[in-house]
């Protein structure tokens, strides 16, 4: 299987190609730049490195969110359009799960999260076991404080992993103390190769139905619903 994987869900961008199901090329960039400018040149670069062309692909993997709305749409439009036009399957995977998969061999709870502003996060709870990653609590958009309080009920170590920033470090330590382990250095950056490996095990999504999982309604829609339900 030759797989192209794309993640542009947050500031870091990661793209990878598996050739015969083995990682052939991967590029992760973590700078504040526009994914719309970076993505296709990066994809072209890894195709060249892997000595493959788009026609050699069997599968495309893409992170479906949560994350930056614009970032998600750039990656998903690219993945979706390419899969459609090459007539190959596309698998969408949670961007949180992709990040949690960095700790696949840790045999413990993993809490990936992204800043969602005003004290909120996009997060979920995963469990790494025997080289597999399983979802324990669904991805959601919640206040970090109340989320951490929920996690206090778990008696084991939770590894916190976030590519965005460290603004919640203090709060995590305050709420969970020694129960929390915050992943540092480059282990907290997304790797598209993990996305590709996860995709090999999953069912594809019908291409036309593929859309980002924003985990948050557009404000105008939320307001409209509120007004029209109260009537």
């Amino acid at each position, binding site marked *: 299987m030759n797989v192209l994987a794309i993640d542009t869900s947050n500031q870091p961008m990661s793209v990878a190609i598996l050739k015969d199901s083995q990682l052939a090329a991967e590029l992760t960039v973590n700078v504040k730049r526009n994914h719309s400018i970076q993505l296709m*040149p990066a994809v072209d670069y890894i195709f060249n490195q892997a000595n493959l062309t788009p026609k050699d692909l069997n599968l495309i993997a893409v992170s479906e969110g949560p994350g930056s709305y614009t970032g998600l749409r750039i990656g998903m439009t690219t993945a979706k359009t390419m899969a459609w036009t090459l007539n190959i399957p596309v698998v969408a995977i949670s961007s949180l799960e992709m990040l949690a998969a960095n700790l696949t061999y840790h045999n413990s709870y993993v809490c990936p999260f992204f800043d969602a502003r005003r004290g909120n996060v996009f997060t979920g709870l995963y469990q790494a076991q025997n080289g597999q990653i399983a979802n324990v609590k669904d991805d959601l958009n919640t206040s970090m404080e109340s989320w951490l309080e929920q996690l206090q009920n778990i008696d084991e170590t939770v590894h916190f992993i976030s590519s965005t920033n460290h603004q919640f470090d203090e709060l995590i330590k305050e709420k969970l103390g020694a129960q929390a382990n915050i992943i540092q250095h480059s282990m907290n950056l997304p790797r598209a190769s993990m996305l590709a490996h996860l995709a090999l095990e999953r069912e594809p999504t019908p291409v036309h139905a593929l859309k980002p999982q924003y985990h948050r309604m*557009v404000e105008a829609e939320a307001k409209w619903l509120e007004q029209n339900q109260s009537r």
Partner: protein
Amino acid sequence: MIEKNELILAIETSCDETAAAVVQDGTKLLSNVVATQMDIHQKFGGVVPEVASRHHIEQMTVVLEQAVTEANVTMEDIDAVAVTEGPGLVGALLVGVNAAKALAYAHGKPVIGVHHIAGHIYANRLEKEFEFPLLSLVVSGGHTELIYMEEHGEYEIIGETRDDAAGEAYDKVAKALSLPYPGGPQIDRLAQEGKDTYNFPRSYLEEGSYDFSFSGLKTAVINKLHHLRQKGEEIDVENVATSFQESVIDVLVDKTYDAAKDYGVKQLIVAGGVSANKTLRARMEQRFAETDVELAIPPLYLCTDNAAMIGAAASVEYHKQNYASLNLNANPGLMM
């Protein structure tokens, strides 16, 4: 095999229409698919950019599939992929731009970035060949521009709005009259029933200028409505609509007429969403009937946003091999 120079697959997502089309040689439309989000934005009283972007990504491949199927072509037959690069809503444009790059890259085809307004002008070429020099009046919700062209792909803006676009003034006045969104067609419809009794100002700006200004008119209408409501006087909605529309159209027609005469053009193209306006069409026809200038107004389905017009404009760039690179980005404030 079809006899052709080139086939272009075009994409347009600058506002609230997800559109794809296949155009042959810049003049022949093989398919033109438009998925409109009109009813989705209607309840918000205007286009909500994030909502528009979310719908674009859901519609994109559906619309593309329909466009190639209706044109009865495959990607192998396509010579280039064209896309609206700007101006427009950035989140909306991004879906089209990234879809275009993905298609082009997957098949090793060139991608061409197109200016939305160039598209509106070139919509006409799907109906009637250009005759240079030509003048184009582009009127829409976002634009009011007079563009002079001596040859294909060369655009000179000789006049533009200094504040609101004509279509924007229509929408704001419609809102002040509590008419449903989009307001333009509503006002045009009501204006057929009324009389120009309110005598709103006509803004011609300084002598010899081809620029436009509609915010003063919009304010005059809103102030008048406010005044009437305060005095408890009855508002004749039809007459307000007629009076407002007459003011807009007088200025549009007069300035376009003067520019056409001064620049000695052979053809006048009226383009953009507002060129669907019945009164504007009729008045332009009247004014230009006695002249040597050929008036060209595209049929309604080519006036509003569509991808066929983008494919038509891209044909010219294709022949110049004016291709974009893989880092093509959406450019919401793209200059012509």
